């Protein structure tokens, strides 16, 4: 019974995120969202599972593919659409857009569009927390491409050396823009993390928000109480193109069969009963959020030079 309730909650949250991004796809041709969007469709379960197990005061450091994490950690939806629309009522007054989402009150710290560049921020925040003797956990979320950055290696080393409460979470969708993992990596993600003394786990079922919740719950508590960093790789699948609202299977760099196989296991593609149970109320929430964005003012000259230094 408990499982069923939790399952429905997670399903609803994952569906909510997917429907937000489907709305973005629908709106994109209108050119009201005039900035790049990196969609998480196919990867929602990672964000939903992780964030369902984080405390409000646990901080999450994300990247340019950040809609799912922003929403899953509690970032407000109307302000998200306003931010995408470049409106003054966006949480960052339209200065951030899709690639730099943040909601500090919910513990969503800044998202960077330079791959791998916020991983070390999680480590630094954890260091400050350790100095003050707190029991918070800091999560750095990044893709498989980010693990090739030197900054990632530096962060793993420092976090392990100083026994910092960091969960390094790699969303492995096997692609860096259009380059496959095989073209890029001579190392194993988990063995590499272990070489720094960071215990590493892999979850292959990244479509399953319940499995993600379970492993994140376990690892977050281990990080919190052992005060040691851990690494978690979650295999996932990006259904859409790297950036933009479309699919790009005709480009030839990936096999549509892999995505089809993934969709065959994706609860959001399978569970029609829950889909119809939740779709209508989520649609209403999204429509209200879009309306809020539509009706909001644009930032102007008075905002151009505020918050520079």
């Amino acid at each position: 019974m408990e499982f069923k309730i939790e399952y429905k909650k997670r399903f609803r949250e994952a569906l909510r995120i997917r429907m937000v991004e489907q709305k973005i796809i629908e709106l994109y041709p209108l050119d009201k969202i005039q900035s790049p969007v990196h969609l998480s469709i196919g990867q929602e379960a990672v964000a939903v599972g992780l964030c369902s197990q984080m405390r409000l005061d646990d901080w999450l450091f994300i990247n340019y593919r950040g809609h799912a994490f922003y929403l899953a950690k509690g970032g407000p939806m109307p302000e998200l659409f306003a931010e995408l629309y470049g409106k003054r009522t966006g949480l960052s007054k339209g200065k951030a857009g899709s690639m730099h989402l943040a909601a500090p009150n919910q513990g969503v710290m800044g998202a960077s569009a330079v791959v791998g560049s916020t991983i070390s921020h999680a480590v630094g925040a954890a260091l400050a927390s350790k100095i003050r003797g707190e029991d918070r956990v800091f999560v750095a979320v990044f893709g498989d491409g980010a693990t090739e950055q030197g900054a990632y290696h530096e962060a793993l080393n420092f976090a392990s050396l100083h026994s910092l409460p960091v969960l390094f979470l790699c969303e492995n969708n096997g692609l860096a823009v259009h380059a496959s993992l095989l073209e890029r990596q001579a190392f194993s993600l988990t063995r590499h993390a272990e070489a720094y003394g960071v215990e590493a786990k892999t979850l292959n079922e990244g479509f399953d928000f319940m499995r993600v919740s379970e492993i994140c719950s376990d690892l977050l508590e281990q990080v919190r109480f052992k005060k040691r960093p851990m690494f978690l790789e979650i295999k996932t699948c990006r259904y859409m193109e790297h950036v933009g609202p479309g699919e790009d299977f005709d480009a030839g760099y990936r096999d549509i069969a892999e995505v089809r196989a993934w969709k065959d296991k994706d609860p959001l593609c399978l569970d029609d009963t829950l889909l119809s149970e939740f779709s209508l109320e989520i649609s209403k929430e999204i429509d209200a959020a879009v309306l809020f964005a539509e009706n909001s003012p644009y930032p102007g000259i008075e905002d151009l030079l505020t918050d520079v230094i």
Partner: protein
Amino acid sequence: MSDIKMKYREALSVAMSEAMEDPKTLLIGQGVTDFKGIWGTTTGLAQKYPNRVIETPLSEDGVAGICIGASLNGMYPINTHIRADFGLLIFNQLINLAAKYRYMFGGLFEVPLMFRMVIGRSWGQGAQHSQSLQSLLGHIPGLVVLMPSNPQSIVQSYRYARSHHKGPVVMFEHRLMYELEFEGKIDFESVDPLSSRIERLGTDLTIVATSVMVLEAVRASDYLNRFGIHVEIIDLHSISHPDHNLIFNSVKKTGRLLVVDTSWIPYGVAAEMSRIIAEKDPSVLKQPVRSLGMQPAPCPTAKSLEDLYYPDVSDIVGASASLVTGQHSHGIPLPVKQAMTDFYKHFKGPF
């Protein structure tokens, strides 16, 4: 602290000790805990504050990011780089992240923190241990970039930056001055800790100088006084936020501008000073602007070349005299060319 004799290094030590008294301060960098302690400026602090004085792996980019994260979480990190050249390794975090954190997120975040970068010069520091990179960073909105030229400036601006400024500050310190002793003389109560100040009043020529070149401008000015030339010296101090009115009003008064920077000339401090005058009112100039800086090449290691590479007092006197007299052959005998290291005799390698 006027009338107190103090070395540049001692002022840095005072600034660091004072900073550590605040439980928010985190002093982090390569060598902050070792027996040399960044030339004595951090010595003893690791013993007193073991949790907040942190030696680092050779991971400049990672550590800069760690500083941003710690700052977001309430600390005030001070990150040291014993050569500014090593600071190039943090430019992603510094320019793409720290400088933009406040603006890019519409004011949701502040990242107060400080990077100390030491410029090496002379005694064979060569191409990668001697660069003055202030112009690169002065170009970037969101950063405060300072070049303190004396102990008073250090104590005042480090304290102010730490306790009042809510964003990233880059301090370019000059290795050549570390062992020099200064006597306090400026009334610092009235000086903006984050902007330019008058080092010496004069009537015939304005020299805008940075860092150690302020000292050289003062020596040149002492020499020129004997020939009836009175130089006004502006210690630029702030690369990112120079005092435009102070600079313009001085040039309006003297009609002549010489810029003496520690770095290369193109697109640098000299170019920016010229822009300030050119955009406000170039008709105040009685002569074209002159500029002195490093030669347009990487820094050579051999002393014979290094001495030719950097401008010295003789060059400043020559440029000043021709500006004031309006003639290339001004008739004022130049002082004997002498490398700064030879003159100050305080800086001897290898470190």
